[in-house]
C-alpha cells in the first residue's frame, strides 16, 4: 500500500499530463467532421466513417511520429519539458497530415466520383468563406462532402488528437521508459477518450459550427474522470526496464 502511495506521489506530474492529454483527445474528437454511414452515401456532411475510427486513425499515426521523435531525442540526452513540447508538436503535425490527406481525397471522391459540391446543412453560410450552403445541399439529404469550415475543423481535431496521444505517450515513457508498454497503454487511453465523446456526437457532427459542439463541457468532465483513473493505473505499471529486462 505504501508502495502504491509512493508511486502516485512520485509520478503525480505524469498523471496530470495524462489527464491533459485525455482532455485534448476528447475535445479533438468533437472537431472532426464525421458523417457516419449516411456520409458514405453522400447523405450527410462530413467524412463517411465513425467518430472513434477516424480520430484513432489520425491520432495514432501521430503517435508513431511522436514515438520516433522521442527515441531520437532521448538518444541525445534526457527528455525534459522542451523536448516533450517538440514531441507533441511532431505528433500533432503527423495526425494533421493524415487527417488532411484523408479529407482532401474524400472530397475528390465526392466531387469527381459522385458529382456533388461540398455543402453543410447545419449553417446557411460557411462561417469562414461566407459562401451560401443551403442551395448546394442535394434534395433529401443533410449535406455532403467537406466544405472549408469542416475541413479546417477536422484539421484542428487532428492537431488536438495527435497532441493528446503524444503527451500521454511521453508521460508514460517518463514513468516506465518502455516504448512497448507505453505505446500500448497510450493507444488504450486514446481509445477511452475517443469513445466517451462519441456519446455526445451520436453518430454525426460537422465540426465546431455544429450545435452538438456545445456539448463539449460534458465530455471534458467525463474524460477528466476516465483519464484520471487511467493515469492512476498507468503510473503503477512498471516497464521491463524496471525488472532488469531490455
Amino acid at each position, binding site marked *: 500500500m505504501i508502495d502504491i502511495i509512493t508511486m502516485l506521489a512520485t509520478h503525480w506530474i505524469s498523471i496530470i499530463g495524462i489527464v491533459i492529454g485525455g482532455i485534448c483527445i476528447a475535445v479533438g474528437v468533437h472537431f472532426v467532421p464525421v458523417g457516419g*454511414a449516411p*456520409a*458514405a*452515401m*453522400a*447523405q450527410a456532411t462530413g467524412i*463517411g*466513417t*465513425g467518430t472513434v*475510427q*477516424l480520430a*484513432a*486513425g*489520425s491520432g*495514432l*499515426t501521430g503517435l*508513431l*511520429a511522436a*514515438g*520516433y521523435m*522521442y527515441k531520437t531525442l532521448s538518444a541525445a540526452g534526457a527528455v525534459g519539458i522542451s523536448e516533450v513540447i*517538440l514531441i507533441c508538436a*511532431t505528433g500533432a*503535425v503527423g495526425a*494533421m*497530415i*493524415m487527417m*488532411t*490527406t*484523408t*479529407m*482532401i*481525397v*474524400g*472530397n475528390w*471522391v*465526392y*466531387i469527381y*466520383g*459522385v*458529382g*456533388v*459540391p461540398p455543402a453543410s446543412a447545419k449553417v*446557411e453560410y460557411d462561417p469562414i*468563406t461566407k459562401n*451560401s450552403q443551403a*442551395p*448546394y445541399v*442535394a*434534395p*433529401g*439529404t443533410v449535406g455532403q462532402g467537406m*466544405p*472549408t469550415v469542416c*475541413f479546417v475543423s477536422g*484539421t484542428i481535431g487532428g492537431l488536438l488528437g495527435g497532441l493528446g496521444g503524444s503527451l500521454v505517450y511521453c508521460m508514460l515513457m517518463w514513468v516506465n521508459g518502455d*516504448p512497448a508498454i507505453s*505505446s*500500448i497503454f497510450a*493507444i488504450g487511453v486514446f481509445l477511452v477518450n475517443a469513445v466517451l465523446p462519441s456519446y455526445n456526437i451520436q453518430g454525426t457532427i460537422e465540426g465546431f459550427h455544429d450545435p452538438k459542439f456545445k456539448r463539449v463541457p460534458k465530455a471534458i468532465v467525463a474524460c477528466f474522470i476516465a483519464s484520471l483513473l487511467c493515469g492512476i493505473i498507468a503510473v503503477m505499471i512498471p516497464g521491463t526496464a524496471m525488472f532488469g529486462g531490455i
Partner: protein
Amino acid sequence: MEPAMGMGLVALMGAAATVAGCSEDLESDIGSQSNPNSQVQLAAQVGYPHRIFNKAISGEPPSNAMYCAVGAGVAMMLLNSVSTSPLLAIAVGAFVAALLNGVFSTTAYMGRNASQTRFNQYVYLDVLRNHVLGIMGHAYVTTFCIVGLSYVMWNQNLIGHPFPFPVIAMIWGLAVGAIGSSTGDVHYGAEREFQDFKFGAGLNAADSGNITRYAEAGLRSSIDNAWFCSKFGGPVTGIAFGMTVFLDNWRSTAFQGWTAVVAGTIIVILIIIYNRYLELYARKNYGPYPEYSGDVEA
C-alpha cells in the same frame, strides 16, 4: 543512416502503402464491409433481395488492425524462433491473416443472410464460393504490404522505430481502414450502389435500401462492384494512404526537430488551400440544385 538510403526507404514505404490502400478498399467493396453495407443490409428488409456479398464483420479500421497485427505477430515469431528470411516470414504472416479474414467473411455472410430468410434473402453458396477467395486475396495483398512497411520501420538496421513490430502494423492497419472507410467507400456507397439514380446527388433518404441489383447482363454481384470501384475509389484510397505514409515519413527523414514540424505544417496549409480551390471548382461547375426553394442566394 545515409540520407539517400533514408529517402529510398520512405519511397518504398509510400509505394507499399499505395498498393495496400487500393487493395484494402477493393477488399471492402467485394465484401461490402463498412458503412455502405448498411444499405445492403437494409435492401432485403425493404423488399429488394439481392446477390451482393454482405460481411460487415466490424468497422474497417479494427478489422484491418487485427489482420495486420496477426500478420506481424506471426512474422515476428518466425523471425525470432526459426530465423526465417524476412520476406518469407511476412508472406506467411499475411497468409495467416488472409485465412482469418476468410473465416470471418464466411461466418459473417452466412450469419447475416440466414437471419434475413424471412425477407426472402437467402444464403447463396455460389456467391460465397466466388467471393471469399477474392476477398482473401485482396486482404493478403493489404496485409503483406502493411506488414512489409512496418518491418522496414521496425528493423533496427533500417529505420529503427521503438514500437514493437505488431503494434506498428496494428496502427498502420487502423489508419488504412480509417482512410479506406472515409474515401474509397464513398465511391461504392454513394455511386455504385445507387447507379439507377441520376448522377450528381447523394442518396435521397426516401430511396434508402433501393440498391442497384441488376448488372449490364444478369444480376449484379460484388465482383462487378470491385471492377467499377477499381477505376476510381480503390486507386484514390491508395493515393490517400500512400500520401499519409510518404509525407509523414518524408518530413521527419528530410528535416530534423522543429524544421520537420514547420515542414509538416506547410504541407497541411497547402492542402487546406487546395481544398478551397476544389470547393470553388465544384460550386462553379455544378451550381445550386434546381429543386432548392429557400431564400438563401447561391
